[in-house]
């Protein structure tokens, strides 16, 4: 029974449910759902590195930031339509990831993490100081929404607010990105990344160019993070240098860990739980970091597999055939 539940197309159900959120009539729920969906993509992109390939990046926010600035600049200053500006975020962030990753994958473990951090701080410093282009410390407010003028003319789908149209658009884009990521993880290429995580020496022995595979994963993760950033800049109605600051990198790392790095949808669950938790907690206390830190400590000591890991373990226990 439970084993059969696992075979249902849950991704599709979640997508349909997510499409129904604005129908609940609350602007706030739509806002929250939009936030969650974007962070889910950001966290899943990081998991391609951390969970799948076993590379702990401490500077993933760099690519999120680059994507956000790319889409923001293109749409605000050059009036480029969204359908071009959005993929541009992925391309630019991917290009940056290629340049930075080229050096990063040559290092191992802690040095890898440190170099990703250094590059992310470089990106942050540039965004923070290059006033003419990025708006410097003040950031870049008033990123326009994509144009939805043509939609109300259509039957059935008309009649929503702009923010809601943007939510539908986000949902569509993120669903496409997650589908692509899922295909990548499940492909022979993705399997090879997992092999590299489990045993890099062995992968090397059987003739795999480990660095090239790691670099490819780094670029893909960066590109998807960039697209998440592009969406987030529009959603946030502004792009700011702290998008690329190191605390953002640790935030997304926490989401990934909270949800569970061992599964594909774990990080998305982590994004959902963390954002909902944050929204609940800040209603009671301003000491959100304190709560977050405590949750994290409990998680690290008690549930190292994250939420998805714990659910998976429970499901396995329930479905295990009983022996006499």
């Amino acid at each position, binding site marked *: 029974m439970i084993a059969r539940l696992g075979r249902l197309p849950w991704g599709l159900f979640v997508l349909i449910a997510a499409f129904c959120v604005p129908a609940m009539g609350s602007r706030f729920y739509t806002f929250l759902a939009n936030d969650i969906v974007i962070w889910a993509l950001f966290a899943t992109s990081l998991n391609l590195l*951390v969970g799948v390939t076993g590379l*702990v990046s*401490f500077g993933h926010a760099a690519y999120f930031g680059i994507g956000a600035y790319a889409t923001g600049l293109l749409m605000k200053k050059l009036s480029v339509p969204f359908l071009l500006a959005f993929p541009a975020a992925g391309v630019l962030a991917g290009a940056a990831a290629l340049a930075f990753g080229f*050096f990063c994958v*040559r*290092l191992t*473990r*802690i*040095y890898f*993490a*440190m*170099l990703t*951090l*250094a*590059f992310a*701080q*470089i990106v942050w*410093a*540039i965004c*923070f*100081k*290059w006033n003419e282009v990025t708006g410097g410390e003040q950031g870049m407010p008033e990123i326009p929404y994509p144009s939805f003028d043509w939609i109300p003319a259509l039957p059935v789908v008309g009649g929503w607010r702009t923010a809601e149209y943007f939510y539908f658009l986000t949902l569509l884009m993120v669903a496409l990105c997650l589908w692509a990521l899922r295909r990548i993880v499940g492909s022979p290429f993705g399997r090879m990344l997992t092999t590299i995580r489990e045993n890099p020496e062995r992968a090397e022995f059987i003739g795999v160019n480990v660095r090239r595979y790691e670099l490819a994963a780094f670029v893909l993760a960066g590109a998807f993070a960039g697209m998440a950033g592009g969406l987030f800049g529009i959603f946030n109605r502004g792009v700011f240098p702290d998008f690329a600051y*190191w*605390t953002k990198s*640790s935030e997304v*790392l*926490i989401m990934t*860990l909270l949800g569970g790095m061992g599964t594909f949808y774990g990080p998305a669950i982590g994004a959902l739980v963390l954002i909902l938790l944050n929204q609940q907690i800040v209603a009671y206390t301003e*000491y959100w*970091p*304190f709560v*977050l*830190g*405590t949750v*994290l*400590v409990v998680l*690290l*000591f008690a549930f*190292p597999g994250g939420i998805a890991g714990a659910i998976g373990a429970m499901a396995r226990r329930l479905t295990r055939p009983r022996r006499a």
Partner: protein
Amino acid sequence: MPDLSFVFAQSVSGLTAAMFLFLIASGLSLIFGVLRVLNFAHGTFYMLGAYAAYQFVQWTGVGGGMFWVAALGAAGAVALLGGIVERLLFRHLYAKEELYQLLFTYALALILSDAAKMIWGTQQKSVSRPPELTGALSLFGATVPHYNLFIILLGPAIALTVWFVLQRTRVGRFIRAAALDRETLGALGVNVDALYTWVFVIASFLGGLGGALISPMRATVPGMDTEVIVEAFVVVVIGGLGSLWGTFLGAVIYGQVLSFGILFFPRFSIFAVFALMAGVLIVRPWGLAGRPLK
């Protein structure tokens, strides 16, 4: 070309900043060198040192040498906290993956810095300079406050003391041995657990002392921990993780690059510092004075 006294003043201010960074980064480097953990919470220990110094000074005032008592008391309190945290929590993490260790220290930083906010609020706190060192010296046409001079002299003194302890004492020998091979050392009958706690206590003391001594120069505010920890990372990475003199060198380089960077490229001095860090990692990942890990 700016005139000489200006250059001198700039390098003195760079050197002062460098010595503070050395105090903080040396603890970070010590913990990494021996325990192999990159401690994100170290910046928070530094911040707590500053707050504790403020608190003690509130009770004692700064006159009659009480500033020094307060500063040492603050560093001692932070060291005690470090020891407790190591005993209760850290020690269960040494066997786990790096990611878990990193995130645990980050969680600790979140908890402790929010606790500081609960106790001392978000208003900035300042401590007045000890009356013994309020004057200033005129050197090469530049004015150098006595307090800065004291810090510039204190940095090397601390470095020498730590070096002496590590190289010339029995405990130091054990610490160096633990950095190389913890299991063999344990098999030889040394209490490695206690040793680790002591390393943590010493490192936290150095961080706390840095915070306590900077409190008369810079306002103590929430958020100073996340800023300083990244700076300390830059320093230890440039100098070499786990290397004492490397850390000293890294701190001096950082201070000079920052203060002269501001002079020549005012907008991109922060950039220069991180670019230097990335450059060192690319060319010599183990740092200028460090040794490659195994």
